[in-house]
């Protein structure tokens, strides 16, 4: 059985999206900047996609700038505000559990003399609007806080934070890459000035995203060249990709409630099944303020990559908080910020669903994970079958 449970990393593209994109490779291939009808057909396709993205967010089409993905949108928002407002102030507020696309952009700014407040989160991964309010200084120019966390699925109180920023006249950006198409968003009601999204997290194509930029925000260009994308993001547009994003976001928002219900039920079955069948497992993230598709558990005494490999051998695709691939030995900054010990963080597994998953897959995954845990624990020098308490020596192995 092949079970894909890594939908927070990326999703399978929907067949309907592919169908919508197909004509824009070899048939409708004009450059949208061209005067002739080949070009105008492509331009019309961009317009349709822009309207669809705008509708999904409660924005206007002229407020949507297509980008080469979520990371680019995050960079454009943060570095753009910094460039534009540096004379006004050099302080930025964010959280400790942002995606690297936000954190590394902030770190670059720190090197250039900006100061960044990384708000701590509670054990569930939450920040509060009053934390934000208290962190605001005279020279604060930007608050950037993710809509929902990609590792543990915690949903932040975005409306409340938006209200605080609005009241204080500070620009508010949210990295909504994990939220768009999964939970309802309204940029106007929620006082969001800038929002990043990415197509491949909602059954759209990889390498295309968008930045919502509220009218009047008027950030500087982030790629220089032609007049594309309201002169903000030069370069011939990824027409097929943008068409795909438009279709994917339309489909996702059309069935947002239905999908959330289906995923939440599967998610809870998966969580319950794991917690019931495997001893000494801890759920990471918030029990209820959590993305419908996110499960993140720490399995004590064993290490994440080993679990992933074993799952993979059994046909299950998952992800872990053990950052093995990047060459770093440190576990996920998100899990550490939630207060997990290094050891526990290393043993975390993320299983993220989509509406394409089935209950059969969920049950198979619970069973497989149980077997794998037994095998790996038998091999683990940390595991002592008589030890029972999970949190007791939570921190003993860190140094």
């Amino acid at each position, binding site marked *: 059985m092949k079970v894909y449970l890594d939908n927070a990393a990326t999703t399978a593209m929907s067949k309907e999206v592919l169908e919508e994109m197909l004509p824009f490779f070899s048939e409708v291939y004009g450059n949208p900047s061209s005067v002739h009808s080949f070009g105008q057909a492509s331009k019309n396709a961009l317009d349709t996609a822009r309207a669809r993205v705008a509708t999904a967010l409660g924005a206007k089409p002229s407020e949507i700038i297509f980008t080469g993905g979520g990371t680019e949108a995050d960079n454009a928002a943060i570095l753009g505000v910094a460039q534009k407002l540096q004379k006004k102030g050099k302080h930025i507020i964010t959280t400790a559990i942002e995606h690297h696309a936000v954190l590394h952009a902030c770190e670059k700014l720190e090197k250039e003399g900006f100061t960044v407040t990384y708000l701590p989160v509670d054990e569930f991964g939450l920040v509060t609007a009053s934390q934000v309010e208290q962190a605001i200084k005279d020279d604060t120019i930007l608050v950037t806080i993710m809509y929902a966390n990609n590792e543990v699925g915690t949903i932040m109180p975005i409306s409340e934070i938006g209200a605080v920023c609005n009241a204080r006249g500070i620009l508010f950006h949210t990295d909504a890459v994990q939220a768009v198409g999964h939970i309802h968003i309204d940029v106007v009601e929620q006082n969001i000035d800038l929002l990043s999204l990415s197509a491949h997290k909602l059954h759209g194509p990889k390498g295309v995203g968008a930045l919502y930029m509220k009218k009047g925000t008027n950030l500087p260009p982030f790629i220089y060249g032609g007049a594309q994308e309201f002169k903000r993001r030069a370069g011939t547009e990824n027409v097929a990709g943008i068409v795909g994003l438009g279709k994917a976001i339309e489909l996702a928002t059309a069935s947002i409630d239905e999908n959330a219900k289906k995923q939440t039920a599967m998610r809870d079955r998966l969580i319950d099944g794991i917690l019931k069948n495997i001893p000494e497992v801890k759920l990471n993230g918030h029990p209820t303020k959590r993305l419908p598709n996110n499960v993140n558990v720490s399995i004590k*005494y*064993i*290490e*994440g*990559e*080993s679990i992933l*490999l074993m799952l993979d*051998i059994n046909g299950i695709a998952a992800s872990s908080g*053990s950052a*093995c*691939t*990047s*060459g770093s*030995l440190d*576990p996920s900054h998100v899990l550490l910020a939630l207060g997990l*010990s*290094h*050891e526990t963080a*290393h043993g975390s597994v993320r299983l993220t669903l989509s509406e394409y998953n089935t209950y059969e897959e969920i049950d198979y995954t619970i069973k497989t994970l149980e077997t794998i845990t037994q095998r790996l624990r*038998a*091999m*683990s*020098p*940390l595991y002592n079958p008589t030890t029972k308490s999970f949190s007791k020596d939570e921190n003993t*192995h*860190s*140094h």
Partner: protein
Amino acid sequence: MSYSKKVLDHFQCPRNVGELEDANGIGMVGNAKCGDIMQMFIKVNDDGIIEDVSFKTFGCGAAVATSSMATEMIKGKTIDEALKLTNSAVVEALEGLPPAKVHCSVLAEEAVKLAIEDYKKKKEEL
């Protein structure tokens, strides 16, 4: 992870897993913070030959595979021969490791050395 077939084989079917009841040398390296702990058990006979060996490992696929391979490479060897085991020999025997994983082979080499050291120390103490 783009692991070699050999690594995946040793990960899936690790040789010599577990605690050796009658071990007379035990070495442990690494720590949970870095995500890798290896424990090596050896039983050295009177001729100085490693008669039996086993390991326990908390760590990634490469950590498990290098431990497993290391046990195979020193089993039946004299402790002097075993002391010559290098991490690159382990990497080679595994048909390579991704660059980010080479440190695991260093741990395996160290675990073997610590186990032998422990054996020697215990012997002296006798």
